[in-house]
């Protein structure tokens, strides 16, 4: 475990310092939009405009990993860009890097303890009361009322994985206090040096022990996670459960579009293959007496799970985007983790861990035939 250091600077000072003391071409973080009352993930290239950034704002209008992918897929930046990512976004990014949809060259990844986010429709910058209760809950290591159900049940809210260059410890503190940070990677350590932060050999270890707050939040969430999974599993008790779970789906496929892992250009389920000849509709209808349209509605979800369930980081975007309030993310989190368990795979854990379907172990062949 990396040592946490009190940096003695606030978040805005920190961002300014990145521009000043380290040759950084840009910083990407959540920021106030010039128009409207919403925040968006924004890339800044100068200190001044970056003042608008509010990296810890509890909303996720886009999964930042998707933004990073868009940003780096074609070509990585030639100068360093610092990017703020929530732990789940960081995990998603790792998965995307594995499938070559994002590059990490010249990126300085900054992550932080995540208290969860509100459904983006339900939070705006002016909503001070909500934000205050969020900060309070954060400080006390509690879940804030009203955050997304998957966030409330997320136990991986501390960016433990080593992909982040800088990790900011937040839980048990207030976001505008001086930052307590660790620098797990070489790149992070260099940044710390550039910013003039003393590294542990001269010791400024964390003044407040955050562990109790983290632990209490972890416990609460663990409990929630268990309940959430149970709820979903009961929902899928049988074929009838499967039907009712996706009953409302209008086949808009928004969930796949906002999903960071669903990187395909054309979703297989939108392809020609699933456009049938007219006779096929007649025959299918004849089989059951009636045919609900569009067809393959359930298959889309089941099939999408088969494509990305192993990499699902449970970021919750899909559920936010669903216009008919299907608990997509809760479903994918639950079932995705079941599938991941089969291959002993944790998405986003390690860049060098091969995707389960692209590898195999020699011994498993005998065991599976049934």
């Amino acid at each position: 475990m990396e040592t946490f250091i009190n940096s003695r600077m606030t978040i805005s000072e920190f961002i300014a310092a990145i521009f000043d003391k380290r040759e950084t071409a840009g910083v990407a973080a959540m920021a106030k939009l010039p128009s409207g009352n919403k925040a968006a993930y924004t890339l800044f290239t100068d200190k001044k405009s970056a003042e608008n950034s509010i990296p810890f704002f509890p909303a996720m209008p886009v999964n930042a990993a998707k933004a990073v992918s868009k940003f780096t897929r074609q070509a990585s930046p030639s100068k360093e860009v610092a990017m703020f990512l929530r732990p789940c976004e960081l995990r998603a990014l790792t998965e995307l890097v594995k499938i070559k949809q994002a590059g990490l060259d010249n990126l300085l990844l900054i992550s932080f303890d995540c208290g969860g986010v509100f459904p983006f429709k339900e939070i705006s910058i002016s909503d001070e009361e909500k934000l205050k209760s969020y900060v309070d809950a954060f400080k006390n290591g509690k879940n804030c009322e009203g955050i997304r159900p998957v966030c409330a049940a997320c136990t991986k809210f501390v960016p433990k994985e080593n992909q982040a260059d800088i990790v900011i410890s937040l839980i048990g503190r207030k976001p505008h206090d001086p930052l307590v940070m660790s620098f797990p990677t070489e790149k992070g350590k260099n940044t710390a040096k550039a910013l003039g932060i003393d590294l542990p050999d001269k010791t400024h270890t964390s003044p407040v022990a955050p562990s109790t707050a983290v632990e209490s939040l972890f416990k609460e969430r663990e409990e929630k996670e268990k309940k959430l999974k149970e709820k979903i599993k009961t929902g899928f008790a049988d074929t009838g459960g499967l039907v009712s779970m996706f009953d409302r789906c209008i086949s808009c496929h928004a969930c796949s579009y906002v999903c960071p892992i669903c990187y395909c250009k054309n979703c297989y389920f939108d392809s020609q293959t699933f456009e049938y000849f007219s006779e096929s509709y007649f025959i299918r209808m004849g089989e059951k007496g009636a045919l609900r349209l569009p067809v393959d509605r359930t298959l889309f979800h089941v099939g999408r799970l088969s494509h990305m369930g192993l990499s699902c980081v449970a970021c919750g975007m899909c559920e936010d985007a669903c216009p008919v309030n299907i608990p997509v993310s809760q479903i994918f989190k639950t079932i995705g983790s079941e599938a991941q368990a089969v291959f002993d795979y944790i998405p986003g854990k390690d860049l060098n861990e091969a995707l389960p379907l692209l590898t195999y172990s020699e011994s498993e062949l005998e065991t599976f035939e049934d």
Partner: protein
Amino acid sequence: MDKGIWIDGPVNKGVMKFLKGLLENNAMDAVLMPGKNKTGDSNAWFFLDRDGLDESASPFPPVMTTQGAKMVSYLTKKNGSWKKTGVLLRPCELRAVIELAKLKQVDLTNLVLISYDCPGAFPLKEYLSGNQQELDMAFETSLGTQTDPEGLRNVCSICSNFTGSGADIEIGLIGADSKGFWLIPGTEQGEELLKKTEESNSFKSLESRDKLVEAKSVQRKEKRETTLDSFQQSVNGPENLMTVLSSCINCHNCSRVCPICFCRECYFDSRALNSGADEMLRRADRKQGLRLLPDLLLFHMGRMTHMSISCVSCGACEDACPADIPVSMLFTVAARDTRKIFDYEPGRDIDEALPYSVFNFEELKNFEAPYTRQYSKQ
């Protein structure tokens, strides 16, 4: 047409009986229409034969879960319907079907288009989270009356094309006072089919209906203009537009559910509009900050260029928007102007060519004043 077959009795039942009759005497083999699931708490589109009809059909849904024209496209895109299929559509869906037929995404072969006087629809999200039974009831009672149910979608409340004209068979509800309905043939095919119904001889004049329709249409048109005008004010200029769109999350859901956006891969998702990181940094530099994902406005504006001419104002996009952006209103406003240029009304007539696919030599001379020149058919 001044007369229609009059059928007495409750509308819902009557329409079902009529459809069933057509299926039973093999005038049609199947019907594509809205329905409900067994528990009755979910509206959807169904493809049914005579056995399935009783079980699942529900001809007048109070919401639009999926746009019917999309369903027709699914069914017929590849070589047309295999057998005779009746399709029961809202007027806006009917218009979309016509547009898609022009775009070759629908094949009208073997289709019998049936439409009706539409009272509008409730917003999907509010319907799903509200008291559905109450809303269902409100909707049903409004069928065939002149009063609109409370809480319709914005686009519905300003819709002036609310009758099923243009269909093979039009179901006349307005003016029937819920005592029954007219079956009005719109085409030769419709006429042929109607001859096969049981009540093929009980005609009743349409005079009363036509008057009411006319009146409602005038009233709606007025409301439409004023509403759109004021809305246009609110989104005028990129600043205002961006405020409206600020909560957009780039899910492109509006294009997914749009019946007219038939592209398999949206151009705005394509590699053509992707750039490298450095290019994006330069853009951020120019604009003092670049929203990620970028090109938000471009997507919406671009989409308008692609389909606003054919936009039938069905409201599906707005229903599907997870961020509650008034997408449909935005498009209706945009389309209002673009249509004027070409005097084009989407879904009006299957033979009316798409504006982009024809031209007129005269136009060239008047390039400086497009608004003054009336578009004429070639």
